């Protein structure tokens, strides 16, 4: 996609014209390009590097109604030392919890890791703006330095782009110093054209990261969706000079999948994005598989689930 000639001003009409004027996405092309990149053969040293890089990009997540303080503490100690049998294992990037548990997580990880909290009536986003802002402020006050907000998909799908835009701007303001990740919930956006529009919308409104999914809707992160978001990020950098991060969340369970995403990042936006500051995996079970593959490379034999923690 070429870089848009002119970014919109703040008027709703200009925003709407800009988003609807974005070129369409070739769905078949996106699918075949990601499928092709997924067949790359990765040699052993590269795989070892990729696994450590991927571990360092994980937002270790627990977002269940049954989350307890104990579970969050256990998650935090795993985030700090994913494999206690091997001190060379890197820590993950962040822990990701519900807002009310952000304080517990911050207490457990200290300053060693980021604490991400989901806010704004996650996962549905169906609440008034005041409630969403309150949700955000409480999470930040409790110690979250990253906020994962959900957009109002209903408003987006009915074409009320300005409303979604204003909401993101307001939440960004409520975040203060905390980084804002905007969850597009691509599984509900239906088309890749919408994913491209939502990506631009979020970036124009001030997102620091754009994130694929909540993990509560299927399909969650897929390679084609992530490709479109990475392209949007690349074009946004060309237009504004700003680097926005991407977080692929939900449905990424194996090291093989994770490595496919890393290849996609490198080939779409370049190596500059292969850092936890600009690319993240939102995952819970992925970490165990990364650890098993890491043990496999370290010991020379296949490892098993008895050798990692049960989450």
């Amino acid at each position, binding site marked *: 996609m070429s870089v848009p000639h002119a970014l919109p001003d703040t008027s709703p009409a200009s925003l709407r014209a800009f988003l609807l004027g974005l070129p369409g996405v070739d769905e078949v092309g996106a699918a075949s390009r990601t499928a092709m990149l997924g067949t790359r053969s990765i040699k052993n040293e590269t795989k070892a590097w990729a696994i450590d890089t991927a571990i360092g990009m994980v937002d270790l997540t627990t977002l269940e109604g049954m989350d307890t303080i104990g579970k969050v503490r256990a998650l935090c100690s795993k985030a700090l030392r994913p494999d206690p049998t091997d001190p060379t294992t890197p820590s993950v990037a962040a822990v990701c919890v519900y807002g009310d548990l952000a304080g517990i997580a911050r207490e457990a990880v200290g300053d060693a890791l980021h604490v991400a909290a989901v806010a704004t009536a996650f996962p549905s986003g169906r609440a008034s703006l005041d409630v969403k802002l309150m949700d955000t402020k409480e999470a930040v006050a409790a110690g979250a330095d990253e906020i994962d907000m959900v957009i109002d998909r209903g408003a987006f799908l009915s074409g009320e782009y300005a409303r979604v835009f204003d909401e993101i701007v307001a939440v960004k303001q409520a975040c203060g110093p905390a980084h804002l990740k905007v969850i597009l919930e691509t599984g509900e956006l239906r088309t890749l054209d919408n994913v491209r529009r939502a990506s631009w919308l979020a970036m124009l409104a001030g997102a620091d990261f754009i994130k694929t999914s909540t993990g509560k809707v299927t399909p969650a992160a897929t390679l084609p969706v992530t490709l479109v978001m990475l392209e949007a990020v690349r074009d946004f950098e060309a237009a504004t000079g700003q680097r926005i991060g991407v977080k692929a969340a939900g449905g990424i369970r194996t090291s093989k999948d994770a490595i496919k995403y890393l290849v996609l990042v490198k080939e779409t936006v370049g190596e500059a994005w292969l850092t936890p500051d600009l690319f993240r995996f939102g995952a819970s079970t992925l970490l165990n598989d990364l650890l098993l593959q890491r*043990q496999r490379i370290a010991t*020379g*034999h*296949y*490892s*098993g*689930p*008895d*050798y990692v923690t049960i989450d």
Partner: protein
Amino acid sequence: MTDDATGRLDVRKTYKLFVGGAFPRSESGRTYEVTAADGTFLANAAKASRKDARDAVLAARKGFGAWSAATAYNRGQVLYRIAEVMEGRRAQFIADVLAAEGGTAASAASQVDAAIDRWVWYAGWTDKIAQVLGSANPVAGPYFNFSIPEPTGVVVAVAPQDSSLLGLISVIGPAVVSGNAVIVIASTERPLPAITLTEALATSDVPGGVINVLTGDPAEMMPWLATHADVNAIDLAGITDPELAVSLEREAAGTVKRVRRPAAGMDWSAEPDLSPIRAFVETKTVWHPMGA
């Protein structure tokens, strides 16, 4: 190619593996030719790689959960059902065994009958193992004390190279009766009875992943399986090279696996006993207060 006698086109067969209840090709894409005892071409079989073996372990681990949790009575019914399906395919099994091992039709038929009978014999053991291998132990205290056999987990068995069906059944049966999931590597040169068995398994009630069948070279896969940390036991019945068997035993020790290594030249047609079942169970002892 056309059959001269009937004028029909030959139906050439390229068989696949049996992993997790499905029939995948080898990840490596390799196949090898299977020939009859007299050297004529029979079919192509998949030549499994270490990655297929790894996938089979994942499938077996998945299958183990429900299978080991099923009641012994239910496991017996499921295993008996396999014998029923095998009985229905008796003619195909006889043809397979005859082609693979040579000899007479009568000897092939008696091997197939013995294999089906043995499967029924094992099916009958599922809900009796605990009585025979378990015990109520006298202890000096107000406790009931029980020892109960439980399945060890994922068992990898190398099927005997010579006895292509009876030997195969004799390594699968004892592993699955107690609730283990099994990965069996079929006889390299005589895999067709094992492949026919997978077709019987796929149409019986045995859950996917409980019995997985790989074809290919055990010497290629076994070093990876003997060291695999998610495999709990190995059965070296079909390893003919004593040096390889010793090195596999040594590698298995690294993750404290149970190892069964039947004596070389084992007669698979001999009456079975409980020793192979006992080889793949763990004894759990429970102390329970008597109350009062």
